[in-house]
């Protein structure tokens, strides 16, 4: 993404903040919607639009779990493994998902680049444990280990959103 596009997105937000530095997170999140992760060009575009250096922008971006500085799969599947979900089978669900995608226990991106499977910390849907979030779509649950295959099929069949919010 280039600085003009980021600027156009930020224009209506600017008068909401006394300092343009505060626009970094909105800008990074928007810049990431193009391909689902941030490369150097994206960081530079955000830096230009917010008046900061790209080194600074990168140091901010690297702090947040949902900003990706490396290529990812087309969709990111985040499986909550915090206590309430663990008590209801999140580890078994996660293992099954990795298995089905031929991934090691640490997760990662499937060979065809279709999905990235990762663990997540409490998603705030503990009443629906074990729960899973695809990109920033509404978190779903309970997704039982036996339903893993069906779940992945659904994720893969869904149309790729034009803006990939994560």
């Amino acid at each position, binding site marked *: 993404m280039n600085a003009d596009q980021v600027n156009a997105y930020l224009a209506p937000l600017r008068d*909401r*903040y*006394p*300092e343009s*530095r*505060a*626009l*970094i*997170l*909105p800008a*990074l*999140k928007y810049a990431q919607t193009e391909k689902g992760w941030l490369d150097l060009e994206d960081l530079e575009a955000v830096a230009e639009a*917010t008046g*900061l250096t790209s080194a600074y922008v990168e*140091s*901010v971006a690297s*702090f*947040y*779990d*949902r*900003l990706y500085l490396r290529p990812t799969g087309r969709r990111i599947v*985040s499986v909550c*493994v*915090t*206590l*309430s979900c*663990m*008590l*209801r*089978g*999140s*580890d*078994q669900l996660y293992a099954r998902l990795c298995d089905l995608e031929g991934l090691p226990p640490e997760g990662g991106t499937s060979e065809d680049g279709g999905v990235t499977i990762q663990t*997540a*910390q*409490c*998603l*705030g*849907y*503990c*009443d*629906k*444990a074990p729960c899973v*979030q695809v990109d*920033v*779509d*509404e*978190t779903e649950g*309970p997704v*039982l*280990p036996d339903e893993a295959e069906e779940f992945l099929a659904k994720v893969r069949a869904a149309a790729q959103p034009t803006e990939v*919010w*994560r």
Partner: protein
Amino acid sequence: MPIRNIVYRHLEHGGDLTALSDYEASGGWKALETATAHMERDDVLYALHRSVLRGRGGAGFPMGRKASFIPKDAEKPVYVVCNADESEPGTFKDRAIMEHNPFQLLEGIALAGYAIRSRHGYIYIRGEYEHQARALDRALEAAYSAGHLGPDAHGPGEPFDITLHRGAGAYICGEETGLLESLEGKRGQPRLKPPFPAVAGLWESPTLINNVETLASVPPIIEHGADWWAQMGTEKSTGVKIFSVSGHVMRPGNYEIVLHDTSLRELIYDICGGFRPGRDFKACWVGGSSVPVLTKEHLDVALDYESLQAAGTFLGSAGCIVMDDSECIVRATLRLAEFYRHESCGKCSPCREGTMWMVKLLDRLVNGEGRPEDVDLLLKVSGRIQGRVLCALADGAVAPIASAVHLFPDEFAEVARNGSPPPTPMIESTAGAAA
């Protein structure tokens, strides 16, 4: 012990209050109208004070007292910040407010802003809650169109704006000064206190930070009066409180109850349906994961701030995680330790290194590679963290670990000898109660 629907006004109404007309029809925005037309700003502040409404985000500090720390003659702009980061394990009560009753939150923020002479509020919402953020976007648009927010929100020519700001995945951005750093466009690492946010917060301006539920409690308090709120509960635990219950109970969900009226046993067994046949209560983290664990002995404790403190724990965020006797306490404790290791922001070495060591030791125990001395070592490591760090994340990490070692000594000793038994999770599609 009955369920109340005061903060969850949508449940009283019998359906979502996401359309402005529905919220208005259920009495919405009346509190703000009455306050701005008939009450001085200090009267609103005083009402908050007298209600003894305590912060619902975790620390339980009285909101009125915090608001009164905001200087009345500040030269800089004054801000209200709503903490919608909701990332404490086991906590999902704010999610339902934002999704089903968003206007009550906006009205509460506007009222808090009126009380402290602020013209601008920010809501900082965790990035994972995009679904809820969009509900708030729609509510904001409708509230602006109707003039509840904007140039005349606090009376003719008295503006109040609310801006929604999305996070991007970091538990520490729920800590109030980490949140402010993040909102300013920095890494979300906590600041040294003092100065407290009320004196120098967002852009070094006086800032009132409150949790979603705290702020959503303000409209009913202004509408029905501080005395009405304060006569519920006890002197120090007033009003209603939402408990998020999850884990092994049959009916997980959000339940709004009057403080002190319900015991932990009633919450777990009567309201949440207890456990699967053949299973029994074993442990519970009542206030989210950052609190000491409770055992069977504590089941009759009343759910209020003082009683829980007397029982050795905290009400915290009221994210009540319940575990039955099918799970090993050491494995559960390890899982919490892993959470804190992942979420430590790394600024203080005792927290960064300590959470790493606690995970290593617990992991060793669970996997049958531990030694009996490891249990003592775990306590030693945890003892070296507290008091040497910048923020309360580290205390929150130590609390569930140290308390588990103290309350389940036999199980820790057994696991140190033989490792944890294989996990047997509860795999059932019992969905949460509607909230």
